[in-house]
């Protein structure tokens, strides 16, 4: 089990790098767009659609990692209560597994919508980038999120020690 987890952890560096590059490009492009527009009267026409795509990349690349490292925004008001009853772990297991399963339906739908966009030939306005590619990417990201959340929940239940080191 442990080697697989280590492998997953190493592999998770790749989407992080992808997200960071997307964000850096987004920053640099916005900067250049303003300069080009104001000084040279020549804005980047495709800036809007590229911004959209870069945002989808940066948000969804890291979603699986955020989802399995307690990164989602949650209300921790009852933490002490669960802790006192020694129910924290059981609660976390349930939350991870249930959340992961819950994503099964959206994954299917995002996929259907992407395939539909492909069938209709939807593209972006200036660069004619097919929009289903973004849909596929989001489907993949949410599907991986679902799987790793379920896996995290199960590991927390049956092999909590394998998760003890920081991700």
């Amino acid at each position, binding site marked *: 089990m442990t080697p697989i987890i280590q492998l997953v952890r190493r592999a998770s560096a790749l989407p992080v790098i992808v997200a960071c590059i997307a964000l850096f490009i987004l920053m640099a492009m916005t900067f250049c767009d303003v300069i080009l527009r104001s000084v040279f009267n020549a*804005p980047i*026409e495709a800036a809007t659609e590229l911004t959209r795509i870069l945002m989808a990349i940066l948000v969804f690349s890291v979603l699986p990692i955020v989802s399995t490292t307690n990164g989602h925004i949650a209300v921790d008001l009852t933490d002490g209560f669960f802790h006192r009853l020694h129910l924290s772990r059981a609660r976390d297991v349930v939350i991870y597994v249930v959340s992961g399963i819950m994503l099964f339906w959206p994954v299917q739908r995002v996929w259907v*919508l992407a395939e539909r966009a492909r069938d209709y030939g939807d*593209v972006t*306005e200036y660069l004619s980038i097919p929009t289903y590619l973004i849909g596929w990417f989001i489907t993949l990201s949410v599907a991986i999120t679902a799987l790793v959340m379920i896996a995290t929940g199960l590991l927390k239940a049956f092999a909590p020690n394998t998760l003890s080191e920081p991700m």
Partner: protein
Amino acid sequence: ADYTLTISSWAPPTHGINAKMWPKFVEMVEEATDGQVTAELKLGIAPPPAQMDLIMDGAADASIIFHGYQPGRFVTTKLIELPGYEGSAEDASVAYWRAYDQHLKAADEHRGVKVIALHTHGPAQLHSSAPVTTLDEVSGLKVRIPGGVGGDVGAALGATGIQVPAPKVYETLASKAADGVVMPLESRKGFKLTEVAQNVYEMPGGLYRGSFAFIMNEDTFADLPPELQTALEENVFGEPLSREIGKIWDEIDATGREATEAAEGNAINAATDADMEKFSAIAEDIRGKVIAEVDATGVDAQAAYDMIKSEMSSN
């Protein structure tokens, strides 16, 4: 009422689409069905390009789509957007529906939903903060213009395109991120252009016309009893609804013109004869290109174009 349809819509609440067109739709539907069918409006459920998916899957029963928001999906709808037609939005909408019924329908671009009306806004003109009086001055301007035919016209005139959704136009012009915007005259009031783009450069027939459809969920329609279906098909859907909605576009265009004439510092500059001639050459180029594009979808584009042209001039 026995059946209440849910309408999903996206323009600002006060825009003619929500303030006049949907109420007209409800009025017509109620009248045709003796009040057995009615509808209620829900705003902001999803952004404009999502509307067709929502209707297809029944997240709402009816909606309005602007074809230019989904590049790649709609090609035949570009025919009505061509510059060079002369006539009101009402005439154009009726001609559009007839051409659709006879020719364009075959391309099946709205597959998955029921098309219940097709319409266009009035002729789109250039609105800018600095006065534009000749066609040459458009070159080098940063102009917000939707894709499709509008984009082709902008490119042919040498303008740089700026991509923003219609509700953001005011901010974009106020912040000078764009020098101008190409929209119908109604937006002078609907999007408060009288404040941020005081000048209109008016080309008869417009630089293009935007193409819209009212769409409906197929199951919702199938669930209605046959006599109500017939009543709606005969008295509301298709040409009657298209005509009424076209009429409203004309109406709100007139309001926009009045608002401009009343607003201090606003001016409408008519294109000169020389510029009209110059523009008709540009329009012809674009027409040729679009007709070829529409031909590729398998419909007889030239016949459809000729039909729209003659329907509109016969009015």
